[in-house]
């Protein structure tokens, strides 16, 4: 390429000139969207408790309902638009996790139920599950050893 710029200088130039993310807008949108999703969860929980569910059952009902809502909104092609607006506010809650599993399941149905849906469903959620479970095992071990020491 040009003899006037080294590779390193070019990369620095790109870094300097590249348009940045609209951080303030994104953080606000994430706050509002994430807050709204959690409020829906809270309402479901309060309704469940109101009908006599104990705290643990109410939490389970809430999780199940939110996962269903995430899956449903993905299936009707709405969740990706919520994510586009709400950014991490829509990705972090459990509805985003549901979106990450349902969307590849929909996408890869064309390759069949085994090699498509079955093999690709955890394309995005897979790493989260692997390291989530790994972290919980470590935490469990630490807790167990701690208990023995005390």
């Amino acid at each position, binding site marked *: *390429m*040009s003899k*006037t*710029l080294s*590779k*390193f200088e*070019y*990369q620095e*130039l*790109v870094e300097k*000139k*590249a*348009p*940045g*993310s*609209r951080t303030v807008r994104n953080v606000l949108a994430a706050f509002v969207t994430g807050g709204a999703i959690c409020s829906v969860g809270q309402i479901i929980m309060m309704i469940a408790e109101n009908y006599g569910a104990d705290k643990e059952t109410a939490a389970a009902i809430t999780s199940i309902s939110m996962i269903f809502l995430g899956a449903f909104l*993905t*299936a009707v*092609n709405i*969740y*990706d638009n*919520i*994510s*586009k607006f709400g*950014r991490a506010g*829509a*990705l972090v809650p459990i509805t*985003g996790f549901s*979106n*990450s599993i*349902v*969307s*590849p399941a*929909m*996408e*890869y149905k*064309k390759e069949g139920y085994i090699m498509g849906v079955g093999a690709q469903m955890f*394309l*995005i959620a897979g790493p989260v599950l692997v390291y989530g479970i790994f972290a919980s095992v470590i935490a469990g071990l630490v807790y167990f050893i701690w208990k023995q020491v005390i």
Partner: protein
Amino acid sequence: MAKKLGTQTVVLDTQPVIIGSAAIVGKKEGEGPLARYFDDIIEDEYAGEKTFEAAESRFMLNAYNKALEKSGKSASDIDFILSGDLLNQCTAASYAFRDVSIPYFGLFGACSTMSESLVLASMLIDSGAASNVVCAVSSHFCSAERQFRFPLEYGSQRTPTSQWTVTGAGAVILSKEGQGPRITCVTPGKIVDEGIKDSNNMGAAMAPAAADTIMAHLKDTGRTVDEYDMILTGDLGSFGSQMLVELLKRNGIDTKDKHHDCGTMIFDLNRQDVVCGGSGCACSATVLSSYIMERFRNNQLKRILFVATGALLSPTRIKQGETIPSIAHGVCIEA
């Protein structure tokens, strides 16, 4: 016979003529500023097929048929098809042409495939090996997303330098004689890698390749930018274009208002939510075979340098921490 000029330009003796061209695009492109120039707008992203991959082949075949019809030639007149796309193993092209029964070459130059095919077809015609050659390329937003990025319904985030893959196909029929703009010389590009790693910033990765080919072309031919009506890059997008102009300026070349980029022409960047503009093989191909050909017909263009740009990456190599090698092939088209 063709003559090599300077380090990498080839001057054609038999100047191949673009006797027909066609552009078929999808819905979003059909809502863009160039909508009225396209031959057909297919609103259904499946184009009546069962999968996005089959839809892409359908776009390709339709563009080929339309271009053939406009050129007044029949399939039996065609010596070779040079075609490519973005999908693994170039299957949009090979599945599109499996029933056509014409000698076929599958090309991969990523988004530069339109100019790569024009370069090779021109040389084939100039060598006397062919009289009529079809150059056809395609890309499809949905098939590209599933191969290179995420499932469509996943709420993935677009970064400020990302681009939007154009859905469509462009086909050009080159002939050793006839009416239309001619290809007078070609400048095949070298692979250039300036160390950009972000696959969501392909404009910046490809800009040095475009600059390299444009500078080589000008040096080899001894021409200046003023001798062209337009320097037309493929899909650098708004940020890549900014980097190209900057790179050329630092090398003493002022592009003035001559540089245009198909990626920023095919979509309205303010209105269509495509961030830095269009990308994909079909981006430069559809703009060239519709709007640019129309402007040649109306005598608004006399000489352009068409430089489609390609990022020669794969998701695997990017995950392995590699940088993005890029390429740009120059094609000089004259009225």
